[in-house]
């Protein structure tokens, strides 16, 4: 990180001071609002990804948002939040490339405001609420810098009615292994067949490393989740995914798995168009796609076949009550 933009309002915030200290050689540039850097519309996400800057900002507006209707792992009230925008990984299918103008990382340092918003949301319901982290970023990838998840787990450890899913591809789990697991938290890993991951999930830990991280977490008593989302088309789809499922379930104790979910590859049309413009040479994006409403996806029949076949395979390993297709 050779450039850090800092909102003037948070320049003396303890998280800002701590994070900035990690980068003594970085140039520090004071700004009024992160949007002046992040939202500029002539930026090139692909080029910026080569050398992203860090932006430290304050989250002003809504901190907790309602999750899409079918997005759940058994809970009735589902929400998501993002303490960060953008990701250190570079997955070619990622919707963030289509959503943001900039590849710079924005970290919102007012962590406590997120926790206050979660408390307020949880108190609206009598049943437990679920909170998904890792929607606009990878939950753990920048954890050594942000320490957000550490603070988050401190919060959730004292709020049993609020449940947390930490969605990640990162193997930065040292801080998790150092602490006692908490019952209302699931650490969920996104998994893609190894050959596909190698081709399209740039800068991510290998699938085997992710499985090893899952194993370590489960042995330490953490609830773990498997997320086969998005399902990506390939020449030998069934063989490729069968190998992944066999590899995963050979190494993990299925009793320790809290939930397994699948999801199709779908993107809003403007996001998809932007991805194609950024990466016209990408085979993943050169496949056959159709428009369903405002979304671009694989043809409906193909998508249904992929989802159904994966469900059939996964239910050979886990109980139906732990399987959640997110469509």
């Amino acid at each position, binding site marked *: 990180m050779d450039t850090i933009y800092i909102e003037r309002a948070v320049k003396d915030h303890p998280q800002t001071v701590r994070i900035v200290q990690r980068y003594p050689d970085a140039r520090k540039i004071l*700004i009024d609002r992160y949007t002046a850097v992040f939202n500029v519309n*002539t*930026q090139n996400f692909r080029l910026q990804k080569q*050398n992203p*800057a860090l932006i430290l900002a304050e989250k002003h507006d809504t901190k907790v948002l309602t999750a899409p209707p079918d997005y759940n792992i058994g809970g009735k009230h589902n929400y998501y939040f993002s303490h960060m925008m953008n990701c250190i990984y570079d997955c070619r299918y990622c919707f963030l490339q289509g959503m943001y103008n900039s590849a710079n990382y924005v970290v919102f340092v007012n962590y406590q405001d997120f926790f206050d918003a979660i408390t307020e949301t949880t108190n609206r319901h009598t049943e437990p609420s679920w909170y998904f982290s890792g929607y606009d970023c990878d939950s753990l990838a920048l954890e050594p810098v942000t320490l957000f998840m550490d603070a988050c787990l401190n919060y959730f450890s004292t709020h049993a009615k609020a449940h947390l899913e930490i969605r990640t591809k990162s193997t930065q789990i040292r801080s998790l292994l150092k602490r006692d697991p908490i019952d209302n938290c699931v650490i969920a890993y996104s998994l893609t067949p190894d050959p596909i991951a190698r081709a399209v999930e740039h800068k991510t830990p290998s699938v085997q490393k992710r499985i090893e991280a899952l194993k370590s977490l489960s042995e330490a008593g953490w609830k773990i989740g498997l997320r086969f989302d998005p399902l990506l088309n390939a020449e030998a789809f069934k063989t490729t995914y069968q190998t992944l499922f066999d590899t995963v379930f050979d190494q993990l104790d299925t009793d320790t798995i809290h939930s397994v979910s699948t999801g199709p590859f779908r993107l809003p049309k403007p996001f998809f168009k932007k991805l194609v413009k950024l990466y*016209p040479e990408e085979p993943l994006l*050169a496949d056959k796609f159709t428009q369903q409403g405002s979304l671009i996806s694989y043809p409906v029949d193909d998508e249904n076949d992929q989802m159904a076949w994966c469900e059939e395979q996964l239910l050979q390993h886990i109980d139906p009550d732990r399987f959640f297709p997110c469509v």
Partner: protein
Amino acid sequence: MRLVARLTAIAVDRVLRTAPTTWQPVMVSLGSVPVSVGISRYPGQALRGIIPVMLPFIVIVAALPAEATPLKTHWNLSPTGDTAYRSWHNDDMLLVESGIGKCNAAAATASALTGIINAGIAAKRIICINHGIGGGLYDLGTMVTAHAINDDATGQTWYPSLTFKPSGATATVVCVDAPASDYTADTAFDMESSGFYSAARRFVGAEFIHCFKTISDNPDHDITTINKARVIDLVQGSLASLTQSIDRLVALHATAFDTADIEAMVNTIKENMHLTRTHGHQLRRLLERHQALHGALPTTATLLDLKRASVLISTLTQQLDGSVPRY
């Protein structure tokens, strides 16, 4: 500029390898200003038949004759004959002398960019630079790169995208309407940057618009002592830093996806078959998909055999829709 020359040679060579042997490398000019490097089946003729090669074209805006002269000499630039703003060029660069002040800088920048874009140079090929003298708390002759540009009169601030690694220090460049000498840390004064930047960003991508200021006055060297000879000396002294930064921008530019081969093929088809604008867009994307899924473009002869645009589009679509990414 050696890098630009090398890239030019590589790109032209690459296109020529796929083109008929009778085609020739050409330079397209607008008046006496070269605007495009390409290959043509009609050497020496107008734009029709020219295949653009995705090379950077560098536009430098300098305010004063003394700031422009060392650049003109260094790159061996020839006069363009433009009467509105004095300007000079070589194969891959245009140098414009704007005159003093942000209004002049904005007008000269817009005029130069409009001219070369209208003449056929795609905006995505342009690297746009403002180089000149400025005052600040730096050693005399130091070249600083603007990490922020602040218009002193309006308070508006822009943040150039530092995706490339600038050579040397970076600073907030404060654009003033009259010479100023109340120097502060990490800041340089100039009189053109905000006009230049606000005009250039209407044409060129954020990663490729930058301001470089060579320090001409500081507390030890009063602003009133600046004269033409000193400016020439200072600009000459900063040429190594300027060249290094330009080389880095050119290297960054080279990482963008190069569409030259595809454009060449679309142009060839256009010359032999009636293509509507929509057909052109469809064909361009189909060729990108072909390259992504099969690792190569189809041969021109195969496409021309299909005779009609609608048949060509439907045949290619059908063929590609039956292809699946291989991992």
